[in-house]
């Protein structure tokens, strides 16, 4: 009887020990798993009108304007194998993950957060993933996604803006500058453009599949629907800027800022 009780106690003790050991193993490896995401950081002094040119494979890219004359790059690598090697040449910061990881399948996603001076020119591109640009007023902003991903451009005051994606939404919130050129193109998704009510532009907006083109407060005046309602052409204000919006299988909407 006593022997059995001792045995039971011993069994319980051993069981608890096993659980504790297992838990310790779990806790030991858990932080390791989290820290598998490698971080890369680097800063460059920036000249006036610095240009950022980034080509990513997969992942989210966020570019923010700030009041320092330097470019700060932070990259979070899903797999440590990915190679990130920025270069600064003649006033341009180049980051090309496609070239730096050519022919490799183990690269995974790389998420960038890049801070640039307000006056920077921004040219970012990715094969898959979201692109965000905010607080930039340099010469141009270009955001291009080859396939899936959303583009968000907020508080932009650039004369040339181009945003293009495959499947995904495009949101633009910014100024339309006189003589500027603005182009937004998507295969499927929603294109929402938030611009000041005193903007002046010539518009060609095409949504042939959905025929959903909502001009909001920009309707009327010289705007007219053509091609059985698949396209809107016209002019708002003195029409000094040019805006071309094409959404093959999605919608287009204008919102007053």
């Amino acid at each position, binding site marked *: 009887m006593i022997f059995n009780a001792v045995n039971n106690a011993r069994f319980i003790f051993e069981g608890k020990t096993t659980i504790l050991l297992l838990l310790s193993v779990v806790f030991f490896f858990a932080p390791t798993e989290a820290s598998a995401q490698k971080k890369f950081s680097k800063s460059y002094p920036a000249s006036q009108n610095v240009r950022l040119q980034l080509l990513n494979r997969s992942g989210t890219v966020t570019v923010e304007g700030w009041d320092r004359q330097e470019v700060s790059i932070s990259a979070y690598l899903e797999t440590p194998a990915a190679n990130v090697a920025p270069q600064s040449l003649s006033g341009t910061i180049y980051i090309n993950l496609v070239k730096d990881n*050519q022919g490799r399948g183990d690269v995974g996603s790389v998420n960038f957060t890049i801070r640039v001076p307000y006056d920077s020119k921004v040219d970012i591109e990715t094969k898959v993933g979201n692109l965000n640009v905010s607080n930039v007023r340099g010469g141009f902003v270009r955001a291009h996604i080859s*396939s*899936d991903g959303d583009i968000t451009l907020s508080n932009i005051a650039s004369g040339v803006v181009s945003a293009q994606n495959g499947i995904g939404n495009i949101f633009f919130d910014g100024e339309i500058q006189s003589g500027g050129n603005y182009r937004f193109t998507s295969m499927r998704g929603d294109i929402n453009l938030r611009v000041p009510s005193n903007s002046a532009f010539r518009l060609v907006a*095409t949504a042939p599949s959905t025929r959903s083109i909502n001009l909001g407060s920009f309707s009327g005046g010289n705007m007219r629907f053509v*091609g059985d309602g698949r396209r809107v052409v016209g002019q708002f204000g003195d029409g000094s800027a040019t805006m071309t919006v094409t959404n*093959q299988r999605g919608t287009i909407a204008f919102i007053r800022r």
Partner: protein
Amino acid sequence: MNCEECQENLSVYLDGELDESVSMSVRTHLTLCMECAKLCEDFAVILDTCQTEPPSEIIPPNSQALWCRISNSIEGDIKPPSVEEKPQQGWRFSFLQVGSAVLGIALISSLLTVVGIKNYFEPSGEDFTSRSAATQTTFEKILSKVGIADTPYEARMRRMKEQESAISYWDKRVQAQRAKWDNKMRDAFDRNLNEINQTVKEYTMILQQNPDDDLSGEMLDSALNDKMNLLRDFSEL
């Protein structure tokens, strides 16, 4: 014996190979006919010269007269030129016709220059390949009619052919590379390619029903460009 018979036998006569009777007839004719006698004399001199002197020194006596006779004989064989007046070759234009032609050439040249300068300095934002016959200018229609320029349909077909050829090239490269992609990349590519293919299919059907639909032509062109760019972008991974 007449002159013709005499001249036919003259060479054999001089060689002394004629029958006596024919030889007598020739001799008789030669005494009567000065022309045949002269010809006989010339022949005799030639034969004699050939027999006695080397060919390089052959200079017939009275060669001028011999060449004159040869020349006369040749001229006698040639038919005299027709006295009919030949009609004058070439065109004749009145002053009015020439003036009109010059004015026409000047007008066409001016038009071509104006169109050329306009196209050079103001390139049209509109892609000709996406246009229909309805939006063609009269000048473009004329050029299309005479075969100088493509019609919008021909231009679109040509452009599509070029795009399909480029798509085929990039597609081969993508097929060679896609095994290296991860699943996320592969899914995104397939989803987008499928979306574009559906779009292309839709516009192709619309254009089959209505080839003059400008907008669908333009959208088809754009979708094919998107497809080409998608393939090219992913082929470099």
